[in-house]
């Protein structure tokens, strides 16, 4: 096998793995933001987003 093929394979595999990593991060972010938006649209709020008077627990 020509040495060029080893170089091409190394760069090709690196490009695929990095593209897969980027895709995973982008899709994961998008999915989580969609879930957050859906919960907020249903009126669910995070504890820290509630006004102080409405909460009785002090867990942060």
């Amino acid at each position: 096998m020509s040495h060029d093929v080893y170089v091409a394979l190394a760069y090709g595999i690196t490009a695929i793995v990095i593209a897969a990593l980027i895709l995973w991060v982008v899709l994961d972010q998008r999915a989580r933001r969609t879930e957050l938006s859906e919960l907020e649209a249903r009126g669910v709020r995070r504890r820290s987003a509630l006004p102080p008077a409405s909460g009785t627990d002090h867990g942060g």
Partner: protein
Amino acid sequence: MTTTTAGNAFTNLANPTRFLNLSGAVLPWMTGITALLFAVGLFMAFTAPEDYQQGVTVRIMYIHVPAAWLSMMCYTVMAISAIGTLVWRHPLADVSAKAAAPIGAAFTFLALVTGSLWGKPMWGAWWAWGDARLTSVFVLFLMYLGLIALIRAIPDPSRAARLTAIVILVGFVNIPIIKFSVEWWNTLHQPASVIRLDGPSIHPSMLYPLLVMALAFTLLFFTLHFSAMRAEIWRRRVSSMRRRAAQAAA
């Protein structure tokens, strides 16, 4: 008074909302600079002269060496995060360790594969189990996979964080072994040629492309790490909000 101010600044930085705001502002810049560095680095890598012994296969070095550096740097980031989890209970420390593990596994995989693709034409072998550098990096890859499995196996997040942090710190012993394996043992893998007490032993025509590619890979790592941390913070918020919604409905 000064201690209190410093403490407040630390608490502010440890705040996930503040991290989301700051990372949201810097990530577009980091993405742009990473892309630019890769364009320049790849141009330099493919216009650099061929090595008089290795020929064209020297170009594999421009991706293999940065991937190998990152495999160790990522684990070091995880070890610092583990200390943050165990000692200071930093709210972002566990998020950081969890987000870094799959990225570290990917870069270690790349270091192993590109090293193997360089080894076959140069050494005449894809792999040598007797080589301490190769074997210790393979152990690092297995450790990343084990940590990912451990994080996913424990349902209680705070227990998972503490256990993972302990395992990360125990496993950190492998990092100096990887780094100094080429000096401690007589290995097939060549010794360090960039970070040396007497300076780099690579000709500048190959050293500069390597350094630019290393910078590009490093910035790529931090861009991916910050992005994965943001996703992890949102995942925890979703989980917390779902629990609240379930409690309210009960």
